[in-house]
């Protein structure tokens, strides 16, 4: 932990072996022609114009096995201000692999993955230094790195 500038709150970087969970709306899920979900689109990891970092939720903030932690992270997202819709999903990524993929890109994005709790989600995490215009990298993340997907309808409420 490193003290945060201008604050008593220490900065907590997520360990490489931990996981981040990101909410993926229905329109950002990759589907076949019959609407069967087969993954996530690269645009699921695109920053909105007014965003300076990518939001996710730290799975291992919650205790238990990997599965328990991921389930708890999805519940934290459902309990937050985000409106989780029935056919949406969640993408799960390994912290170290996400950082490595960004750094290995020709543009060498040095991404910092920081625990930044919010009022409605204690496990909220900010991915800072996130690429803004790099479609190939976002597709790579969607296809190979941040590609594990679970659907909302498969998670018990």
């Amino acid at each position, binding site marked *: 932990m490193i003290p945060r500038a201008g604050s008593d709150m220490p900065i907590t970087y997520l360990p490489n072996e931990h996981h981040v969970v990101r909410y993926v*709306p*229905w*329109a*950002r*899920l*990759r*589907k*076949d*022609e019959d*609407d069967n979900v*087969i*993954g996530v*689109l*690269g*645009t699921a990891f*695109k920053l*909105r*114009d007014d965003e300076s970092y990518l939001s996710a939720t730290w799975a291992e903030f919650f205790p238990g096995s990997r599965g328990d932690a991921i389930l708890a992270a999805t519940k934290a997202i459902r309990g937050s201000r985000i*409106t989780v*819709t*029935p*056919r*949406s999903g969640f993408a799960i990524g390994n912290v170290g692999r996400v950082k490595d993929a960004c750094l290995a890109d020709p543009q060498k994005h040095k991404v910092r993955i920081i625990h930044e709790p919010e009022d409605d989600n204690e496990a909220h995490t900010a991915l800072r230094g996130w690429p803004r215009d790099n*479609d*190939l990298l976002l*597709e*790579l993340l969607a*296809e190979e790195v941040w590609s594990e997907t679970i659907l909302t309808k498969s998670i018990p409420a």
Partner: protein
Amino acid sequence: MSTLQVVRAPRDPARFGLALISEPSIGVSPTSALIQQRLKSITAPTPTFIGSPALPPKSLEEKLYDALAAFKIRTATVAMHLDRDWRSRLFHQLDSLLAVEDWDVQDPPPSLASFSTFLRMLILLRPDRRPGLGATDDGNLIAAWTVAGDRLTIECLKEDIVRWNLAATFAGEREKAAAITPLPRLADVLAPYDPARWFRYADHLSAE
């Protein structure tokens, strides 16, 4: 000491300019009365000037419904280029994509300009296999074909421009490409990547 308070009622917009028009004298001719009537209609404020009540903002459901209706009307103008069953299934996909219960409230519906590019792209590429559909947070439609790990993703921008990227395996080697291309050149720039792998069904390929 007293205070004189002058209370002025708001002026009736319908009366603006009428002061310049004097009332006709008694015994005025029918022609004068007609001129008087027309002058009144000239000075009458327009509906905009009066200030019509502002329409309430559309709900998300209304916006999505309007977008869907516009997409289907636009498709009808080129219906002769699309097989009926194919078109019907595409409409079903659009209904599904824009279902209000699954739409992210922060996203605008896809724009008609993006849909027009999407439609022309389908007519130019003539794929047997329909794409999976998606949308960006800034109102663009996404067409995605995924076959055995080979991925082609095309974001339809306005005015016949597409942003595409692909990842496909050629002779055991993984290859990736991305570009922004004017729609008329899309088939040419995809040609080296054997796009039939995405657009044609295997049984069609074997028959060729």
